[in-house]
């Protein structure tokens, strides 16, 4: 747990600050001088062509990837190689993956209670109450005792969202949460995300769902070749794109 003092000092600072972040995979320069501020309660949608570094960027925020230059400060804690800082940040940042990554050997309920009991040291009964609350909120409390592979893709992704929420995170990261889903299941997941946004969760979503971006985002960030090309409110972004690359991307993605 972070000390309350440290938390209070950052109350008026942005939740997430990225300053001059660079990353290389060997010779390949994946992230080039990324700067981003995310305020508490802000909803950010990150889009861009594949290979543009958008997933890598949000994976840097909870240290699934290491950045090699620049600063990342999450909730007042700077990400360094200090394991305690990494652990402190991961407790505050929930993440939802493209391929759900539920734990197949545990039931849905066990998937949800595992981290609260082992990381937050919550008593088992309380963790189960919390888990059932969130399962109800994502609409599948009746699946609590099944195993992940017995659920549909959309249900699994909703469980994954509930699993992240059970840790009561301050920030949620979504890494293409609907890309691996059948079309008819995308809506049920987006509905859950929209509801979450409505309740004021600070969110960064990497997604190609432009409808979701228009409806929910405060800011749309367009990335290409490792750079932030453009970041604007959705209205501005969709109706009046500034750069050629953004226009090209929008023309391709909005065609269908």
């Amino acid at each position: 747990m972070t000390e309350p003092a440290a938390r209070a000092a950052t109350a008026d600072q942005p939740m997430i600050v990225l300053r001059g972040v660079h990353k290389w995979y060997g010779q390949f320069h994946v992230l080039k001088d990324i700067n981003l501020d995310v305020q508490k309660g802000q909803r950010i949608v990150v889009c861009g062509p594949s290979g543009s570094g958008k997933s890598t960027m949000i994976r840097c925020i909870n240290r699934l990837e290491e950045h090699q230059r620049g600063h990342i400060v999450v909730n007042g804690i700077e990400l360094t190689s200090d394991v305690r800082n990494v652990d402190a940040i991961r407790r505050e940042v929930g993440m939802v993956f493209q391929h759900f990554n539920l734990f197949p050997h545990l039931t849905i309920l066990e998937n949800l209670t595992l981290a609260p009991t082992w990381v937050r040291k919550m008593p088992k009964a309380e963790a189960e109450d919390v888990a059932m609350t969130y399962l109800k909120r994502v609409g599948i409390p009746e699946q609590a005792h099944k195993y992940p592979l017995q659920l549909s893709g959309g249900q699994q992704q909703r469980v994954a969202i509930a699993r992240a929420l059970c840790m009561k995170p301050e920030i949620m990261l979504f890494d293409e949460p609907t890309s691996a889903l059948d079309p008819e299941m995308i809506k049920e997941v987006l509905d859950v995300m929209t509801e979450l946004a409505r309740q004021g969760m600070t969110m960064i979503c990497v997604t190609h769902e432009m409808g979701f971006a228009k409806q929910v985002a405060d800011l749309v960030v367009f990335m290409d070749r490792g750079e932030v090309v453009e970041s604007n409110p959705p209205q501005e972004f969709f109706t009046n794109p500034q750069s050629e690359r953004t226009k090209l991307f929008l023309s391709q993605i909005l065609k269908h």
Partner: protein
Amino acid sequence: MATIDAGQRSPDLAPPITQVGPIAWVRQNLVSSPLNTGLTLLCLYLLYLIVPPLVRWAILDADFAGTSRADCTSGGACWVFIQARIWQFIYGFYPPEERWRVNLGFLLLILAMVPLFLRGFSHKIGLAVGLVVIYPIIAFILFYGGMLGLPEVETARWGGLFLTLVIAGVGIVASLPIGIVLALGRRSTMPVIRLVCTGFIEIVRGVPLITVLFMASVMLPLFLPAGMNFDKLLRALIGVALFSAAYMAEVVRGGLQAIPKGQYEAAHALGLSYWKTMGLIILPQALKIVIPGIVNSMISLFKDTSLVLIIGLYDLLGIVQAATTNAEWLGLAPEAYVFAAFCFWIFCFAMSRYSLHVERKLDRGHRR
């Protein structure tokens, strides 16, 4: 005139006898083509050549009752030999008046393990860990003695099936955790740990078990300071456990590599530490995948225990072999070896069946 009502089906007839049942089975599997018919006949002929003499030797013409060589008169197998020596085969040179300690030790183990096989018992892992920690101490006090009023029985007198089970049991129980640690170490991001684990695995795997045992029994004392001496059995146990651990490590590593990267990432993203990620997420899945490989290693270790003969320990095979050179029972090696092979087979087969059972049980949970 009968009309056929579309909604009412006539009862299904049984399929023709040529398609199901024993006759169909014979047709499909034994005489489906001229070649198959020929092979079937050949196999029947070979069975005719082998089975009747074997049955005659082992059962029909064999002598079961008696006390000495003179009771073997009918020309078949002389099981009297096994019967006369059975206690030695089981306990080795353990003093007969102290054998109850061995019996009690194994009885305790079996009783303690019963809950592990019960369906409703929910603290299996706790019990198993407790057993692994506490039972060796109890077993050592019982078997070795020298305290609590039990006379000391030095390990040189341990032997037979008892010794085989002690070596195999210690080897199996110790090699799995050591193997898991080595496997994790080999995949560690810390270069020193990775180097040490990889080096250990590759060196130990690169030499025969006999060499390891020789080193443990002959070379180790040369390096130890004068006056310091380990028990020979203890040295063999350490050798067997480390040898088996190297193999176990590679089996476990195979399982670790089969777990998708997303599982690690999801665990990390939830804030689980390295050890919690491994213990709660990765190893339960990885070990389940490699149960067949683990049991394979265990079975092979069980049989490898017979190699301790070369450093002067008399395990089941060793003591059976020694008995065949006894002047009174000369020429009865076939009976002795058949008996030893049968004992080994019983234990290995049981392990194999148990692993299948565990696999099926674990699979039931999250099968689609």
